[in-house]
């Protein structure tokens, strides 16, 4: 009995002394990764680019009020046979263990994306340290340049890019895709994924005011277009209008501006702000043929008008504006449909899932040849657009008569 008590006592003492055997890691032994770029090298290997925080630099930058020569991050590139291999190879260069949970963005190079993204993302799905809430982007160019590019307001470039992605709701011209959503789409048998693109622009001096004198040009990161995939391989790009067309169908338009010509003066523009959107994809069987109706209900406000003669006190003008608004939305949707459905035959609109839900019985037959079916579906677009408010005053800004 006493021996056992003594044994227990010694065991507890040992526990205290032998701390650190488990996966203990101090804060100052971690390299906090903020962004990961994935490329394929010419000989088929994986090349990873990491953006790693320098916490002490960030802190001094903060207290010194920004500026200063040193950056808050550094970039590390490593190669390997697989993603995980490249990850571990990075520790040969980084003096600390890479710590991935706070990764904010994954940027995949365009070339790598054309070869297929599914194998590249397996690690991020499988590993317990990675998170599914990171945003995924396709680089139009080299990922390393995009990850290394400096930003004016943020100390950490990854923060800036993350903010860019989060701000896409203001225009709805670029989608916002996180890893979880992407993996879900990839797992679907019929739907095809799409990912926002990002590119590095070189702006000349006269385009930017604040620039150091020795620099002739400045590199600026910009979100641009949407990469459209067939299964997991990139096949082409959507421009801004087509992207919004896609987002209308998916009901993902949050806000944005629709520019329509003025009802009286065709050359002058009126800007309408998107306030509220709901959309529905309704598959129907008409005479054994599949017909899909896309219903979009939109409400907007008059945000700005550059014409002088629009009299907003008259209901007619309002009606006309509403019609033009609906037409503009319809055009955007059709642009997306033509390119994705007719030209490429990729189901980025999740029509297949809608049909599956509505006609589970027929789906068993349909899904076998869904790729051909999809291209031949008749799609009706119905847009109901309303205009609610006109802003703080009714009359245009002009001289009093």
């Amino acid at each position, binding site marked *: 009995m006493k021996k056992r008590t003594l044994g227990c006592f010694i065991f507890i003492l040992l526990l205290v002394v032998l701390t650190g055997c488990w996966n*203990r890691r101090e*804060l*100052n032994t971690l390299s906090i990764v903020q962004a990961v770029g994935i490329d394929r090298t010419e000989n088929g290997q994986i090349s990873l680019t990491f953006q790693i925080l320098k*916490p002490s630099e960030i802190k001094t930058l903060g207290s010194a009020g920004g500026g200063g020569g040193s950056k808050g991050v550094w970039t590390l590139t490593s190669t390997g046979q697989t993603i995980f291999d490249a990850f571990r190879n990075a520790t040969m260069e980084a003096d600390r263990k890479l710590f991935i949970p706070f990764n904010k963005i994954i940027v995949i190079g365009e070339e790598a994306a054309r070869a297929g993204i599914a194998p590249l993302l397996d690690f991020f799905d499988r590993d317990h340290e990675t998170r599914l809430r990171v945003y995924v982007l396709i680089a139009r160019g080299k990922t390393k340049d995009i990850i290394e590019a400096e930003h004016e307001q943020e100390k950490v470039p990854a923060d800036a890019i993350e903010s860019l992605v989060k701000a896409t709701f203001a225009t709805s011209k670029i989608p916002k895709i996180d890893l979880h959503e992407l993996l879900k789409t990839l797992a679907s048998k019929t739907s095809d994924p799409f990912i926002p693109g990002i590119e590095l622009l070189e702006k000349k001096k006269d385009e930017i005011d604040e620039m150091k004198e020795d620099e002739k040009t400045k590199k600026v990161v910009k979100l641009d277009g949407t990469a459209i995939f067939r299964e997991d391989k990139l096949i082409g790009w959507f421009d801004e209008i087509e992207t919004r067309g896609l987002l209308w169908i998916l009901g993902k338009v949050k806000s944005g501006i629709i520019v329509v010509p003025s009802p009286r003066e065709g050359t002058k523009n009126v800007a309408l702000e998107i306030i509220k959107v709901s959309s529905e994809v309704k598959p129907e069987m008409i005479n054994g043929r599949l017909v899909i109706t896309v219903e979009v209900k939109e409400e907007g406000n008059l945000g700005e008008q550059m014409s002088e003669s629009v009299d907003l006190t008259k209901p007619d003008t309002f009606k006309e504006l509403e019609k033009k608004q609906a037409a503009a939305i319809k055009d955007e949707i059709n642009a997306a449909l033509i390119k994705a459905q007719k030209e490429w035959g990729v189901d980025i609109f999740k029509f297949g899932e809608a049909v599956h839900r509505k006609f589970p019985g027929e789906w068993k037959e349909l899904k076998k040849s869904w790729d051909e079916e999809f291209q031949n579906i008749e799609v009706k677009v119905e847009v109901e657009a309303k205009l609610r408010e006109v802003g703080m005053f009714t009359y245009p800004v002009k001289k009093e008569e």
Partner: protein
Amino acid sequence: MFRKIMNKIKLLGFQGSKNKTLKEDTLTKNSRQLSHDLQVNLNSLKAVFEDASDIVIREFKIGVEQQVKAFLIFVDGLVDKFAINESLLKSLMLEARLAQPSQGINKDNVFRYVKECALSIASVKESRTLKDAIDAVLSGDVVLFLDGSDTALIISIRGWETRGVTEPVTETVVRGPREGFVETIRTNTALIRRKIKNPNLKIESLKIGKETQTDVCIAYIKGIANEKIVREVKKRLERIEIDSILESGYIESFIEDAPLSIFPTVGNSEKPDIVGAKILEGRVAILVDGTPFVLTVPYLFVEAFQSSEDYYSRPFYSSLIRCLRYLSFAISILSPAIYVALTTFHQELLPPPLLITMAASAEGLPFPALIEALIMGITFEILREAGVRLPRPVGQAISIVGALVIGEAAVSAGIIGAPMVIVIALTAISSFVVPSISDAGAITRLFLTLCSGVAGLFGIMLGISGVLTHLCSLRSLGIPYTSPLAPATFSDMKDVFIRVPWWAMLTRPRVLSVKNPVRQKGGQMPKPPEDDTKN
């Protein structure tokens, strides 16, 4: 190794019992009857009080013709000298001569005469044994021996230097009575009696301590307190065999239900209003001579979070403050542990900006977070202890210097991280919010920090389950320590996390299984007069 220690303890116990038998011999010798012969009594007392320079024996004679010899014996300093001169010696030596009975004073009638006619003093008792007389002398009474009578008179004119009734330093209040107990048990019982003017307030006394013969009183209200608990308290007190009682802590350690637990199962207070309130709830108070700290039993865990001021201020703020006390207790025992767990095991749980800030301050620190937490925790305990023990002016200076050195210098020198200093400071402040279990809290904090250093949040969870299980296993005088939370007694919840207004406090705590649980009748919530509502 263990066996050796146990043997030693047994040996010590044996020696103790030997001493006890010796002591008992002398006691039996003293418990013999007093003699008729004054000289015999005088000699035996002189033998007992040999070499005791503070014992005064004053011999004198009573009467005119047949003078009767008598002597007074008392301890110098414990009696009221003025009362001895005025009420004792003057009336016995002078006034007895003027107003002596017709047949004169002689050996046969002197006892009756002195007791009934001559002594102008309120509290007079008789004693027939030498032991009683000696005890009385030592307790501060004057004992009067008269020739020819085998009974001594114990005259109580105690009077010694005492501290006045002042505001206790340990339990200050903004609102509420400011008086505190003192070191004299009689004053303390009087302070309680002044709060509860009820003949059912029983104050039973006994003496504990072979050498010190300390007066101990138990106070309770008959008809409210559970008789079983009162009996149990008495039983436990009577069981104590100790040579000395210098503070109520001695008694506490003998009557505790869980002597090996770090959590106290006996409460203490220095304020009559708190003790009065506890007695009125059906608890039993134990007063000990020589200390202002009065014990109360049963003592439950939730009592640590109740302050007397909760009951004097308005209920809303009291309830808020009470919840904050629970929160700050949790902070005080958990925050270093959670900090260690988050920085060494679960960095992914931190919000990214916070992680960056913390990682920045962790750059270049020489110690792991656990060691840092231990260093700072121990340093804080040392500072606190130094601040308490040193003379007040020096203590403050030490605290300030310590805070500067540890807070400022350690961080700027890069030895300790700034977040750790903040965590420890928060812990320290929180731990003072619940002072009565802050000592148990300090040990729990250390334990949980070690748990967290071993296994992160899993360790903390294991540690907390351990502590909670332990708490639930405790009893105080048979009452579950964690009640009324576990086992849940919903009628008592009115005074746990919130404090309901007094007109809603209808019952006494049911967990104490009091005899009369009804405190007052319901429906006393103040309303506007009926005339007003009509208008």
